[in-house]
């Protein structure tokens, strides 16, 4: 195997290490959202994003870019790439290019997962606004403390709203015959 070597340098006041970190955080984000059909090409996806980020950084001559700005740019670029690829879905030619098998490989299971998803959205929409907000952030993976900060509520109030909202969700889903 031939070694692959790469050197990154600072651009517009941003240390190379920042670009390296952005690349790796992008890789992590992509790994979390990457559909199976893109799995084998996720590195290309990250590379495409990095090319655009570096290009933007180089073009902003004279303007000192902060690391925060770099991540904001990375966010836009990542979303743009997802939009672009959704419009032109790529079908892998080689079955081995598809990602690791999941339970959704089975069409029946996939249909059931979609039905559950629709039921969750419907049940969320039936919650009171505050409970819906608390539960949404919880389902997104935020901790109670994070959700409280975002919603500007106390942790106690947020926690109550999350657990009452989740109980409502369970009840709503059971009336639909859905059990996640």
């Amino acid at each position, binding site marked *: 195997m031939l070694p692959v070597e790469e050197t990154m340098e600072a651009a517009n006041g941003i240390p190379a290490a920042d670009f390296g970190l952005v690349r790796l*955080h992008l890789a992590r984000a992509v790994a979390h959202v990457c559909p199976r059909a893109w799995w084998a090409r996720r590195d290309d996806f990250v590379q495409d994003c990095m090319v655009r980020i570096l290009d933007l950084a180089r073009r902003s001559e004279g303007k000192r870019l902060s690391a925060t700005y770099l991540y904001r740019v990375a966010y836009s670029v990542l979303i743009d790439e997802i939009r672009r690829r959704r419009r032109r879905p790529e079908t892998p030619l080689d079955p081995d290019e598809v990602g690791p098998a999941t339970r*959704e490989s089975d069409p029946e299971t996939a249909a059931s997962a979609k039905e559950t998803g629709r039921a969750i959205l419907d049940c969320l929409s039936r919650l009171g606004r505050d409970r819906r907000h608390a539960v949404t952030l919880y389902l997104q993976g935020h901790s109670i403390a994070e959700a409280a900060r*975002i919603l500007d509520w106390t942790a106690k109030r947020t926690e109550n709203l999350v657990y009452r909202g*989740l109980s409502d969700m369970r009840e709503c889903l059971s009336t639909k015959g859905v059990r996640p």
Partner: protein
Amino acid sequence: MSPRVSEPEAEALRVAYQKLLDDASTDDADLDRIWGAVTGELSPAARRDVVEEVARHPSWALAWRLAHELASAAAESKQPRAVVSGRRWSTLPLLALAAGVVLALGLGILLRSSPRGSEYREPVAATIESRTPGDAISKRNGCRLEWAGPAGAVFELRMTSEDLGRVHTAAGLAAGAYRVPPEFLAELPPGSRLLWQVEARLAGGGRLASATFVATHEKECRS
């Protein structure tokens, strides 16, 4: 009142909700508002308005998830930088401290490139140790960094200058040695230090990361 939802039930809901996003588009999501809400730039009322959209639209939910991921990464990458920037490391204890900070900041985070769930460290007491003579990159050792690690592993090496201005990576290394490219050293003052770390992909699967090592480079290796 119905009994409280158990942790496994809540987790199952979370997983089912996340699956919703697998096929979501992001076409109608307002990225500026979402980023502003996630980073706290918007007012609380405006943040709640965004969360309302996230609750209703999978496209917003997916965009929120990515924003959260990258905004957290931005915050993570910013914190230790404030400690390191502009510092001159003149003593060994400071150097050790700074190397530790850089480990967390640069190479440590750099090496956490795989998805969180798949991170893996070898459970046995395998280690990677520096074998660079005198911790110096010099003509005497062929301007190489050297290390010893598990047999059969393939290594990835990352190194950075002290100020993080230059980063170099080399992947797919079968031997425990790597000649530092003169071009990489050319821009660095003689006697300056490099921080380097090696990650092994083990023959039996899994990964093993070394500690961060420090090496001084000598002028003679710059050309």
